[in-house]
């Protein structure tokens, strides 16, 4: 079965580290394996949409079976994300791929777009599965296991659209207040998020631009190489040299395409995911601030109004607990997220560097033969290509390896 290629490191709390050491020789601690594949187009009278197949394999007791297969559409993912945010307002929920790509998207159902989205959705579900808290969320379980009609009826159970809208309006108003009384560590966190968001966005743009430039470079090389072949038709003495160069250019073009592939598989999705993460994080900060603000507004109410002090005090007590919970949850999740981010970024860029090294190593080693003729000297080159050799010049005596000889 096609295992998801991505698996984030386990959080480094002492307990899980012990677990890691204990089970080092055993397969993954994971007991929930999810894949997203097989996008399919559905056409109804009202709309066209894509569904993705989700296969879940698990050994957990609370699941009725050990294997599930369901089909979900993007809307369902949105719903799941909403529910998770509701249930855990200060946890860092993994980001979903965007609804639309703003620029240059002609068709929503372009193959590349669908494939990119599929990979991102796959990552989304797996990140949830790896999260120590979110993995046990009830809605998550329903999402993975319920048949289509079961899911629809389950969806209807939550608070209605209007009440959710009302909540949002109040939340925005409150979040403004929360910023003022933010504790030190969350100020730092917020500062980090702001800078990080800026930088990761820039890196996203830079990486996309590099991809574009490489594409154009590869295209130009495709035209460049054949000119040398054309030229060799009118030059008897230069045929070998010209053909050698043409083949080198051709190799280069292919190697560039491979490099681009690596970029789009390893680096671009990771960077983009963290762009979305940075937006997520800002939302999380806001929600934390909201919760704080709720408390602060009640406390303020207490200092001004003498009436209902008992009720207020009780409410404040509850809110204080709520705030403490939220802050702790966020703090813990923040550490986890920072750690994962570090690893993901590290491995993405290391892979990119490796791709580049391989790209430059593609070219065969050059043997330079310098021999003296009657008058002056002539330079001949050999391309060494493992078993075969293509001569660029003439004369074969006195082969000198340039890497050992002084030039």
């Amino acid at each position: 079965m096609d295992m998801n290629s991505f698996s984030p490191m386990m959080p480094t709390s002492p307990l899980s580290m012990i677990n890691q050491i204990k089970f080092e020789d055993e397969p993954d601690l994971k007991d929930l394996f999810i894949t997203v594949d097989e996008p399919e187009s559905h056409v109804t009278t009202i709309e066209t949409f894509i569904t993705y197949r989700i296969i879940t394999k698990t050994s957990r007791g609370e699941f009725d079976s050990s294997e599930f297969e369901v089909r979900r559409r993007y809307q369902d993912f949105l719903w799941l994300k909403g529910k998770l945010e509701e249930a855990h307002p200060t946890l860092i929920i993994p980001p979903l791929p965007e609804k639309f790509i703003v620029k240059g998207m002609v068709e929503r159902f372009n193959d590349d777009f669908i494939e990119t989205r599929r990979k991102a959705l796959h990552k989304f579900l797996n990140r949830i599965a790896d999260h120590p808290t979110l993995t046990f969320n009830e809605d998550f379980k329903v999402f993975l296991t319920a048949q289509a009609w079961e899911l629809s009826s389950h969806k209807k159970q939550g608070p209605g659209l209007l009440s959710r809208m009302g909540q949002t309006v109040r939340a925005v108003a409150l979040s403004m207040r929360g910023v003022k009384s933010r504790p030190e560590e969350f100020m730092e966190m917020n500062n980090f998020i702001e800078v990080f968001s800026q930088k990761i966005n820039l890196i996203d743009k830079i990486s996309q631009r590099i991809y574009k430039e490489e594409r154009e470079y590869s295209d130009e090389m495709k035209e460049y190489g054949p000119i040398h072949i054309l030229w060799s038709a009118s030059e008897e003495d230069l045929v070998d040299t010209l053909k050698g160069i043409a083949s080198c250019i051709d190799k280069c073009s292919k190697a560039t395409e491979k490099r681009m592939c690596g970029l789009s598989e390893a680096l671009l999705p990771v960077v983009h995911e963290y762009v979305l993460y940075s937006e997520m994080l800002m939302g999380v900060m806001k929600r934390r601030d909201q919760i704080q603000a709720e408390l602060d507004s009640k406390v303020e109410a207490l200092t001004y109004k003498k009436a209902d002090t008992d009720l207020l005090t009780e409410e404040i007590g509850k809110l204080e607990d709520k705030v403490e919970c939220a802050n702790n949850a966020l703090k813990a999740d923040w550490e986890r997220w920072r750690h994962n981010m570090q690893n993901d970024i590290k491995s993405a860029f290391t892979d990119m560097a490796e791709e580049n090294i391989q790209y430059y190593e593609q070219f065969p080693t050059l043997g330079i033969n310098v021999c003296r003729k009657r008058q002056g000297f002539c330079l001949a080159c050999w391309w060494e290509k493992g078993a075969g050799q293509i001569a660029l010049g003439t004369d074969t005596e006195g082969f000198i390896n340039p890497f050992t000889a002084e030039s």
Partner: protein
Amino acid sequence: MEQAPPDLERQWQPAPLEPLGHADAGLQAAVGEEAEGSRDEVPGDGTEHALGLGVLMTENNFGLKKIEISVSEAEKRTGRNAMNMQETYTAYLIETRSVEHTDGQSVLTDSLWRRYSEFELLRNYLLVYYPHIVVPPLPEKRAEFVWHKLSADNMDPDFVERRRIGLENFLLRVASHPILCRDKIFYLFLTQEGNWKETVNETGFQLKADSRLKALNATFRVKNPDKRFTELKHYSDELQSVISHLLRVRARVADRLYGVYKVHGNYGRVFSEWSAIEKEMGDGLQSAGHHMDVYASSIDDILEDEEHYADQLKEYLFYAEALRAVCRKHELMQYDLEMAAQDLASKKQQCEELATGTVRTFSLKGMTTKLFGQETPEQREARIKVLEEQINEGEQQLKSKNLEGREFVKNAWADIERFKEQKNHDLKEALISYAVMQISMCKKGIQVWTNAKECFSKM
């Protein structure tokens, strides 16, 4: 610095005035003699040029000498042009050194400043007086095949530098050519700063240049040119077309490559700013960013080297035109010959008709005699006599033109063979050095990315 020893004057004379296309008989003899005795020292196939030495034959009481020529500096100047307006131009310093046989030391013998237009004048002179020679081309007048970063400005220091090298190359090519190197105007170009322009113009070479129109006419109407020249023309057209195509695409490739490298430089800046907020990743990010900067700036040197490669190709792009000039000259001479032969044939026919009394061809005289009455026998005799004289002259001229033509073909083809060898040698070297450049670029790339990878993996 003018210090031509007295006996040099005798040796060196400007190419003769008539007939055109003839190698200077006096000079030819001199070349012949010297060539015999100096085979070891004057290979003249361009290899000296590759080693930075130009050979100039000077003969004095001490035998043959070797001379080094270099265009060592370029300077911006302002002056007044022909219309008395201020203009800015670049002047180039030409230094000539003579290499003593005995100890191999070189002594500066001449140094003077010349501007591009004077080089052009020299070349135009050579084109007129040596039409059977493939005259080396000058570096381009204006920057062409520029890619994005390169400036098309003639005052740009990089352009000036590349032009300086190109001009030096031109002088070395002329100096290492077995025939061109002996030209006096060329010698004066290197040694006589003032008055040189006047001296060149005094040769009257502009008047001797074939008119473009005449040449074009000949190209279309010539019936029987030497097949080798026709093939050569096609070859030079192909060469020109393929090299310009290659240079154009190379410029675009350079542009793209520049883009790829430079965009990576942005990583450097962003990583550095990001590292400020990271505790553990900070160092790794910072040093990786530094390597990204190194990577981005490495493209500048790489592309500069590639420009030199492009210049080498450009030289042969312009050589194609020089080849065509020789072909044109042949066509002109051949056409001239054909016209002369035709003229002679018609005169002979006229003569025959007058003598026998039959009129097969149209002639105005014939017409008028028909209309206005016959001419007297005396008149006819007179006309026949004139024609016979003309026919004699014509036959002499045809003979000499034939000879000229064959001489031209022989000499031109000899130079073309020399040129072909030079071209094959130079182009092969240029292409191989291009391949070497690419390899070196890859080596640099491997190094930078290996360093970057190490930094990333330490984050």
